[in-house]
């Protein structure tokens, strides 16, 4: 018989593993498999027609597209924020540091309403953008803004500790060898923070795909234009179309899982190339 348990001096392996499995089953696996079971009530053609209607396909495109764009922007600016917080000392740094966590804590509906108020045609920011022909609220752009807002802390909080770990000696070494700042960043710093950056990206992306509360206020929710998949699921639920709702959620689950898997593979690959000393 193959035994999974390896001899270890750390006690409690059986208990800990058992607890982990039960816990994960209760919290993650059983609810998720329920979605698949419910979907199984549909025949394959039924399922296929539900998940490929033009309105639904447009919502996939919007959800994943906006999430991807928001996560990408967060990677760039989240890195910048983390960099400033790690490298510089300035008055009020603690407050800025605390502000980063706000999107975690704020009820998403509040965030959505606040952003809508700001970016609406008569809002503080919207009133300046509207004359330039840029409409943010009630358009896909608004969705992107909301998703960027909620995703920022993920990137900052994953990159920050890694940046703190990078010894200034590495940069000094690069400088003594003749590298300029850009070369030092690209060749020395970036490869080290890349895995953390990918983690931050994956987290922000995953969070954005599932986001509902903040988006529905700012999106306008026009079918084919600014309607996200989670909203469609809710709509179907309200019409007591449980099978249809779960069918959509299964599609989202599969796509999300695939994307996260790819990101994890990328991370694994880059980690292998830069193992920790």
């Amino acid at each position, binding site marked *: 018989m193959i035994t999974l348990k390896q001899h270890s001096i750390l006690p409690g392996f059986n208990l800990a593993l058992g607890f982990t499995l039960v816990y994960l089953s209760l919290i993650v696996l059983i609810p998720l498999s329920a979605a698949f079971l419910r979907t199984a009530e549909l025949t394959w053609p039924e399922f296929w027609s539900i998940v490929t209607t033009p309105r639904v396909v447009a919502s996939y495109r919007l959800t994943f597209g906006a999430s991807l764009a928001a996560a990408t922007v967060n990677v760039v600016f989240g890195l910048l924020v983390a960099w400033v917080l790690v490298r510089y000392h300035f008055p009020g740094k603690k407050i800025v540091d605390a502000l980063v966590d706000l999107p975690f804590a704020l009820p998403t509906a509040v965030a959505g309403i606040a952003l809508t108020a700001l970016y609406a045609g008569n809002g503080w920011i919207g009133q300046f953008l509207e004359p330039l022909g840029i409409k943010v609220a009630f358009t896909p752009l608004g969705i992107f803004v909301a998703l960027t807002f909620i995703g920022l802390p993920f990137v900052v909080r994953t990159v920050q500790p890694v940046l703190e770990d990078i010894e200034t000696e590495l940069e000094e070494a690069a400088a003594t060898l003749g590298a300029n700042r850009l070369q030092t960043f690209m*060749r020395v710093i970036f*490869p080290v923070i890349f895995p953390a950056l990918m983690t931050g990206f994956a987290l922000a992306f995953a969070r954005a795909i599932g986001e509902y509360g903040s988006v529905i206020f700012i999106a306008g929710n026009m079918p084919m234009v600014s309607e996200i998949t989670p909203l469609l699921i809710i709509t179907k639920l309200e019409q007591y179309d449980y099978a249809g709702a779960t069918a959509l959620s299964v599609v989202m689950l599969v796509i999300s899982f695939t994307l996260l898997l790819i990101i994890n593979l990328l991370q694994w690959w880059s980690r292998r190339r830069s193992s920790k000393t």
Partner: protein
Amino acid sequence: MSIEVLNLSRKFGNFTALQDVNLQVNAGELLALLGPSGSGKTTLLRVIAGLETVDNGQVLFHGEDATDQHVRERQVGFVFQHYALFRNMTIFENVAFGLRVRPKEFRPSDKEIQSRVIKLLQLVQLDWLAHRYPHQLSGGQRQRIALARALAVEPRVLLLDEPFGALDAKVRKELRSWLRRLHDEMHITSIFVTHDQEEALEVADRVVVMNEGKIEQIGTPDEVYEHPASPFVYEFLGNVNSFHGRLYHGRLWIDDLEIKTHRHLANDEETAAIAYIRPHEIEVLKADDDETGIAAKVSQVTALGPIVRLEVTRSNDREKTPVRVEISKEQFRELQLVKNDAVFIKPKRINLFSPSKEKIHISDFVI
């Protein structure tokens, strides 16, 4: 290439790291900056490298002012205590880094980089590790790679910041004699920082002893060891016995012990003085035939390989301050000493410092 440091000062807040330091490093020599932590030695090295700014003073490279030159342009090779290897690159890429980041018009071809890196790896005897990553290497190997990486850019000077500080004792000894041999082959002007006096004395051509942001003494290892310029240098370099005494009427008194000398010591006023005697400059005798020895008792015997360390207390010393003595194993066998034996000790040389820091060597003395 020669380096000159003129009137260098640097403060960090209220802490004075360097205070009006002047130093001349000759082309091709291996110089050690020796001192306790906080003595300013690392700051001095970093200022020379261009990694630290100065409040005052100048750094000259080959007679040219380099004070405001950026570290990138100074062409210095710097080796860090904790190696600072790029962990995302192979050993080969680490060494090649300095060549790869050169502007296109100065960058050697891939083929040339390849051959130069391999040559350097052979120089540090680690060419078989070219495709490993830094975390797969031992500390000693990493430091040799760090050195190869610094040499790759053909630096004008080599600066090493406590290069062996993070290594264990055996590797440290191997590496420092290896560094000495390497320097003898390459003759590149090198400065290394250390707090280990043995390391400085063994490796360097000249030693700069630093304390509290100032240079206490500059000299060959022999000079600083045999003729320390100040009490600090005396106590910092090697073990030493110190005796607080008084100078009076041309004589030195340590408690009730009178040391006479032909030389005229100080004036007739009574002044305090410290006498230093190195442990190996004390003779131990079983019998005192010419009555010039000091009666003492052996209180401790420690054998350390080829030398034997004794602690003795003078019979007339009420406080029983231990006096450290080092004799060879051979002598020890001849004397057949055991604890509590009565012996006579005879200092061969005494160095005297009066509070005015005036130094007096006395070797022709009578007790």
